[in-house]
C-alpha cells in the first residue's frame, strides 16, 4: 500500500491527566479518574460516578495561549485545543507547516455544554438567552476554533459518529495522506460531558452506579467521561523532510456498520468482527502479530459480550492480552478512540500493557480474562484499538511500532 501514515505527535487531556506526562503518571499509579463530581448543574450527574476533568472552563482557557478574551468557547473546544496544542508541540510543527496541514477533528455532542444552557433560557420567558452560546452548538465549531488557534488553512473537517468518532477521524486523516492530498494532518476527537449526555445515557439505563467493570461477569454498565485525544499524522516524505523520528505508525484501519440496532450491538458482533478483520487485513499483518488489544469494553452487558464474541471469531482461543482502559478514563465518547490510540502509542514506547481495573470474574459464554495488573518491559509492536458507537458505527485501528 502506498504512503505510510506515521504518528509524530500526540496530545491528551482526560480525568487522569491534563497532558501526556500526567496521563503516564496516573497509569503507573493505577489511578482511575472515575469518581463523583459536582461541576455540572445536574442532580443526576452528581449522583452517578463519572470521569471528569476537575478544572472549570475558565481554568482550562487560562492554560491555552492565544485565545481571545471576548470569544465564547465550548468546553469541547477548550479540551480539543489543549490536546491539539500538545500534539503540535510534540511533533514540532511550525505555524507555516500548520497552515498547509489538514485538520480532522471529531465530536459527538459538540458544544452542547453551552447549547443546553442557551436552550433552557431560550424556552423560558424570564431569562435572555446568550446567543454566543448558540454559536458554539454545532460540532464544526470546535474544529474552527482549533484551526484558528493553530493557523490551519488548507482543509478542516469534523466527524460525528458517536463513540467511534475519533477513530474515524484518524481513518479519514489516513486517507488524506495516502491519497497525497496533504502531507500533515492533525486529527483526533473531543467531548465534554454535559447534562444532555448524562441524561441520555441514563435514559438508556446503561450507566453504572459504581466504577465500571469491563469484561466482568457482574458488570453493571458504563461510567461517562470527558477527554480529548489528538495526533499529528504525517507521510513518510514529510517525516524525512522534517528530519524527525516518528513515534509509531497507523498501519491499518477498518470501519464497518453493524446495521443491527441504533444503540445495541448484534449478538454475533458482526460489525466489530468486520472492523477488526479489515484493520488487520489492511495492515498486511496477521491476527497472531497483535500483541495487545485496547478493547472498546464499556462495561455494559451488551457491548462486552458482543465484543468478546467478535474477538473470539477472529482470534479463536488465542486472544492476545486484552484490556479496557475505560476503567481509568470512563467512556469519553467521541474522544475515546483518540485517548485510547494515544495510550496505544505510549504502550509501544514504554512496553506497557494496561490493566483492566475492577475485574473479578470472567463472562461465562466467552471466558476472556483481561490483563489486571500493569505489565511493563513487554515487547509491544502491534496494538488493535477498538471504538464502537451508536448507529452500529464500528471502527478499529492498528497501531504499530516503527
Amino acid at each position, binding site marked *: 500500500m502506498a504512503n505510510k501514515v506515521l504518528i509524530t505527535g500526540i496530545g491528551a487531556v482526560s480525568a487522569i491527566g491534563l497532558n501526556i506526562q500526567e496521563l503516564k503518571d496516573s497509569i503507573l499509579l493505577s489511578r482511575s479518574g472515575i469518581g463523583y463530581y459536582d461541576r455540572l448543574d445536574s442532580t443526576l450527574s452528581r449522583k452517578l460516578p463519572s470521569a471528569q476533568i476537575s478544572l472549570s472552563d475558565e481554568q482550562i482557557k487560562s492554560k491555552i495561549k492565544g485565545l481571545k478574551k471576548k470569544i465564547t468557547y465550548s468546553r469541547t473546544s477548550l479540551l480539543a485545543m489543549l490536546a491539539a496544542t500538545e500534539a503540535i508541540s510534540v511533533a514540532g510543527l511550525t505555524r507555516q507547516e500548520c497552515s498547509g496541514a489538514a485538520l480532522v477533528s471529531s465530536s459527538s455532542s459538540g458544544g452542547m455544554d453551552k447549547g443546553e444552557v442557551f436552550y433552557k433560557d431560550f*424556552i423560558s420567558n424570564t431569562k435572555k438567552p446568550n446567543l454566543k452560546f448558540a454559536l458554539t452548538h454545532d460540532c464544526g465549531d470546535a474544529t474552527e476554533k482549533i484551526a484558528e488557534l493553530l493557523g490551519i488553512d488548507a482543509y478542516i473537517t469534523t*466527524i460525528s459518529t458517536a463513540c467511534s468518532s475519533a477513530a474515524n477521524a484518524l481513518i479519514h486523516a489516513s486517507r488524506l495522506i495516502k491519497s497525497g492530498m496533504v502531507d500533515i494532518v492533525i486529527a483526533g476527537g473531543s467531548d465534554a460531558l454535559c447534562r444532555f449526555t448524562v441524561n441520555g445515557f441514563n435514559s*438508556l439505563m446503561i450507566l453504572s452506579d459504581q466504577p465500571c467493570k469491563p469484561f466482568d461477569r457482574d458488570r453493571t454498565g458504563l461510567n461517562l467521561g470527558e477527554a480529548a485525544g489528538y495526533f499529528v499524522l504525517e507521510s513518510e516524505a514529510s517525516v524525512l523532510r522534517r528530519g524527525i523520528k516518528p513515534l509509531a505508525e497507523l498501519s491499518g484501519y477498518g470501519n464497518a456498520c453493524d*446495521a443491527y440496532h441504533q444503540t445495541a450491538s448484534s449478538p454475533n458482533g458482526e460489525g466489530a468482527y468486520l472492523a477488526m478483520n479489515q484493520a488487520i487485513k489492511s495492515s498486511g499483518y496477521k491476527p497472531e502479530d497483535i500483541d495487545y488489544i485496547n478493547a472498546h469494553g464499556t462495561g455494559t452487558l451488551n457491548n462486552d459480550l458482543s465484543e468478546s464474541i467478535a474477538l473470539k471469531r477472529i482470534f479463536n482461543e488465542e486472544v492476545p492480552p486484552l484490556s479496557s482502559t475505560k476503567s481509568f478514563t470512563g467512556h469519553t465518547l467521541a474522544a475515546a478512540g483518540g485517548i485510547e490510540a494515544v495510550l496505544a502509542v505510549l504502550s509501544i514506547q514504554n512496553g506497557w500493557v494496561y490493566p483492566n481495573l475492577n475485574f473479578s470474574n470472567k463472562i461465562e459464554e466467552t471466558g476472556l480474562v483481561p490483563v489486571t495488573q500493569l505489565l511493563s518491559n513487554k515487547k509491544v509492536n502491534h496494538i488493535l484499538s477498538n471504538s464502537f458507537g451508536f448507529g452500529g458505527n464500528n471502527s478499529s485501528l492498528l497501531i504499530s511500532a516503527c
Partner: protein
Amino acid sequence: MLVKNIYINGAACISAQHTFDETFFDGNVIGKHTGYRKVLDPDYKQYLNATASRRFSRLIKMSLVAAQKSISMATIITPEAIITGTGLGCLEDTEKFLLSMIESNETLLSPTAFIQSTHNTISGQIAMMLSCNYPNYTYSSRYFSFESSLLDGVLMLEDNSAENVMVNAADEITPSIHTITKQLGIWDRGECILNENSFAVTAGEGVVSLILSKAQNSTSLARIAGLKLCFNLGHEQSIEKLIYKFLEECDMKTSDIDVVILGMNGETESDQYYNNVSALFSNSSLVVYKHLFGEMFTSSAFSYWLSSHVIHKGKIPLSCLLNNKTPAKIKKILIYNQFRGKYHSLCLMTDVEV
C-alpha cells in the same frame, strides 16, 4: 484534486422545491414563500413501513426516502459505503430530548429522542434499511459537511476500496432554530441575490442523496472531474488564483466552462467572492439556487443535485439563471460555494459522453 472517472449514477433530492418528482425542471417552481424554505414532504407512508413512518423524525424519513430513490436510479443493490454530511444533525429529536430533560427536571425520560438525536442516526438508519455492513461515516463540519462526505467518497473510489458509494447531505430546520439563526444574523437576512426580481434568501432544509460509481452505465447523469476544498484562502492566495490553479489541474480554461453554479445568498460579505468569480467567466451561464432552496450548512448539496440533472437534461431552469446567457451546450459545469470567505469548495462536473 483531479478526479478520474467518477460517475454520478443516481441523484435524488427532497427540498422546498418539486425536486423529488423532478417537475422543478418543467417550471414547477415555488417562488414567494413565508418563513423558511420548508421541505415538501413526500408521502412517506408510500416508501416506509408503519413503524418507521411513526417513529422517525422528518429528517430521518426524508433521508431514507431519498436514499431509496438514488439507489433505484443507479440500479445498484448495496453501496459499499454510506457517507452523510449534516451540519446540525437531528435537531427535532435533540430539541425534544432537551425539552423533556428541562421540563421533567431530569426524571422519567424516554430514550427514543436521545437515541435518534445523534448525528450518525441518518447514515446508521440507511445502513439498517439496506442491511449494509460496509463503512459508514457522518461528517458535521459547517459548510464542508457535504463536501467532506463527497471527498471521502471520492477517495474511497480512487483507492479501490469501493465501486459504488452513497454520499448524502441532510439538514432540517425547526421553528426554534429558524428564530435562533435569524437572531444570529445568518442565513435569513432578507437580502436578495443580485437579480432584483429574485426572492430574499431565507434559511432552508432538505436532503440530497447521490450514488457515485467508478463505472459509467446507462443511468449515469454526469461525471465528477475535479474537486478542491480550501478552508481559508490565507494571505497569499485569492479566490481567482485558487480557481485558475484548480482549472489548470483539470486541464481546463475558463472559456471551457459552460455553466458556473454559484452559492450566492445576497449577503455582501459572501457575495463579493461570487462576484469576483463571475467576472472570470464572461462567456458562461451563471446559475444561482439559494433564493429557491434556502441557505444552511449543507445547502451546496442542492447545487450538486441540480448540476447533475442540468447536464443530463441539457437545460437550465430559468428561475435559476442569473445572467441572460443560455449556453449552446452544457458539457462542463463549475460549482463554487463558500460562506463569508471561508469553506471554499470547487467541483468540476462534466457530461458523460466519451
